[in-house]
């Protein structure tokens, strides 16, 4: 009977923000024997003939030792037959973990026994977890050189459990890395917690031997919500196939299903409300840091603030240029007494950029002025202030020489970037201007 098998046994990555302890997995293991194949065939026949009212055959259910279905949680330790026998003996316990298993096994024996039969688990703490090679679903004779190396890399990755995700601020660079450090620092290492679900696939009655243990499912998670399941859940698709090695080659069917309980809608709503509350509170906290006040000008006065830079001067004849500039305020404009209305940049030696010589000043300045309109009927268009520039050059004998003049009208539109160009002499100015209008009826000028 040719069944179809799922050959895609790669790992699947799931991301979830919920706690990983809510994970529940159902694993179903079923041996493929001749009776089970026959019973399946008969079942299919019966189902297809149901409408014709044919003889109802009692399906030969495979019982007992050839199938098992189990639901387990995250890091739930289920003992194998081998482990039950091993941990019954107190002398075999070396570590505190072994002693804890010993007490658990004794308690299980006193109670009704373990609930699993063939399927068992290795949790993160077990000593076998890091030694298991991860590729065991397809039986191969002996691992190749590459497979061995990959297994050692994976083994090293699992060993680095205490790796801290945050990089220390000092010592970012390791000047003398050892070979081990180099090999293990190539990829991003997330500390992963692992859980292996194993199956004891011995012939019936001969459970409890280590050679017959096969790896069924591996689940790994890091602390931040990534869950890696290898192989992926295949409920509803074809089962995976495990072929045992050894004298008797058995074929087993594996089905993995995710049976985590979904959240109730009320709980979801409660969680969302809690998040909303948290965000609102954080916003209020930020608002309280910022405060409510803001500096406002007196009513009826337009406040003009300008921040700008004198950036460069290009295309002048001589070297060692500097710029002397001042602002002129027309009528109705005023400024604060300490506000300086003029400035001198540094003297800059030019360099050649393209075909011209250019001097860089990078001189920031800021300027604030107030406009008060007295009569609204006349002068409805305000006169804007002006900046006048004078470019001078300084030579090696400390003589000054005027190279050129220019002016720039303050922009009426805020946020502009403008350049001033006169007769092939270019002065590049970046002006960031904005205008403050206090809230009053007189502010309809702009």
């Amino acid at each position, binding site marked *: 009977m040719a069944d179809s098998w799922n050959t895609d046994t790669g790992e699947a990555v799931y991301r979830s923000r919920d706690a990983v302890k809510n994970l529940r997995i159902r694993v179903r293991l079923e041996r493929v024997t001749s009776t089970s194949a026959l019973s399946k065939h008969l079942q299919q026949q019966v189902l297809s003939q149901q409408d014709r009212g044919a003889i109802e055959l009692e399906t030969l259910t495979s019982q007992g030792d050839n199938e098992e279905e189990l639901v387990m949680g995250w890091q739930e330790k289920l003992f194998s037959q081998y482990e039950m026998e091993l941990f019954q003996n107190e002398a075999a316990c070396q570590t505190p973990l072994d002693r804890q298993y010993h007490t658990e096994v004794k308690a299980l024996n006193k109670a009704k026994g373990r609930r699993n039969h063939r399927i068992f688990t290795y949790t993160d703490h077990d000593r076998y977890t890091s030694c298991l090679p991860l590729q065991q679903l397809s039986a191969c004779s002996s691992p190749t050189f590459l497979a061995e190396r990959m297994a050692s890399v994976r083994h090293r990755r699992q060993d680095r459990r205490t790796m801290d995700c945050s990089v220390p601020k000092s010592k970012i660079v390791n000047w003398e890395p050892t070979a081990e450090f180099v090999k293990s620092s190539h990829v991003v290492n997330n500390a992963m917690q692992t859980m292996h679900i194993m199956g004891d696939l011995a012939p019936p009655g001969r459970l409890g031997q280590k050679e017959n243990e096969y790896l069924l499912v591996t689940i790994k998670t890091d602390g931040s919500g990534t869950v890696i399941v290898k192989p992926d859940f295949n409920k509803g698709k074809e089962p995976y196939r495990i072929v045992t090695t050894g004298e008797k080659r058995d074929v087993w069917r594996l089905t993995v299903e995710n049976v985590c309980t979904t959240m109730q809608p009320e709980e979801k709503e409660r969680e969302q409300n809690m998040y909303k509350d948290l965000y609102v509170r954080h916003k209020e906290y*930020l608002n309280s840091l910022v405060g409510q006040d803001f*500096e406002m000008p007196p009513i009826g006065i337009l406040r003009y603030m300008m921040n700008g830079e004198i950036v460069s001067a290009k295309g002048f004849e001589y070297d060692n240029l500097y710029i002397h500039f001042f602002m002129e305020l027309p009528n109705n404009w005023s400024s604060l007494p300490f506000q300086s209305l003029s400035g001198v940049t540094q003297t800059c030696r030019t360099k050649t950029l393209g075909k011209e010589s250019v001097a860089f000043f990078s001189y920031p300045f800021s300027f604030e002025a107030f406009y008060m309109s007295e009569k609204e009927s006349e002068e409805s268009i305000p006169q804007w202030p002006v900046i006048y520039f004078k470019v001078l050059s300084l030579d090696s004998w400390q003589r000054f020489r005027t190279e050129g003049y220019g002016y720039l009208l303050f922009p009426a539109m805020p*946020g502009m970037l403008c350049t001033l160009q006169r007769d092939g002499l270019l002065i590049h100015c970046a002006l960031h201007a904005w205008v403050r*209008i206090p809230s009053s009826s007189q502010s309809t000028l702009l």
Partner: protein
Amino acid sequence: MAELHIIGQIVGATGFPQSSLFCKWGVHTGGAWRLLSGLKEGQTQVDVPQTGEVAYWSHPIDLHYATKGLHGWPKLHFQVWHQDSFGRCQLYGYGYCHVPSSPGHHRIHCVTWRPLGSWQEQLAQMFVGGGPQLRSPDLVYSGADRYRLHTEAMGTVELELGIVMRHFDKYGVES
């Protein structure tokens, strides 16, 4: 109670004589401004371009300011340094520019200049490197004392900044 977000990157630098460069940057504001989150100064890595002469840093800038007034609008300052093959660092330029005041995406070219010494110092600088530096670069923000400096023009620092402003229009500030 107005807020300003400055989100962008220092892209790189061009126009310098050598190209193994790094940049120390910082943001300077007035007293009414308060930094809510982000680092307001830092230092980029040293970039040695393999092809071309543009040194790329791609250094992120992510700042959130709250302000009670318009005085002291944030200014960026840069110090571009050169690191040679022996590991010595040499100043290649100071640059200053204002953070743009209109919201949106801006591409800023901030030019830099370097102080110049006497002709003996310049000769020594040509062979050995080094050169005069400002004793306290903070004095140069206001520009009042700059006229005493003799400088030479160096390269340009390129920036891409995105500006997001909040609540400014509530207080009648047009930008």
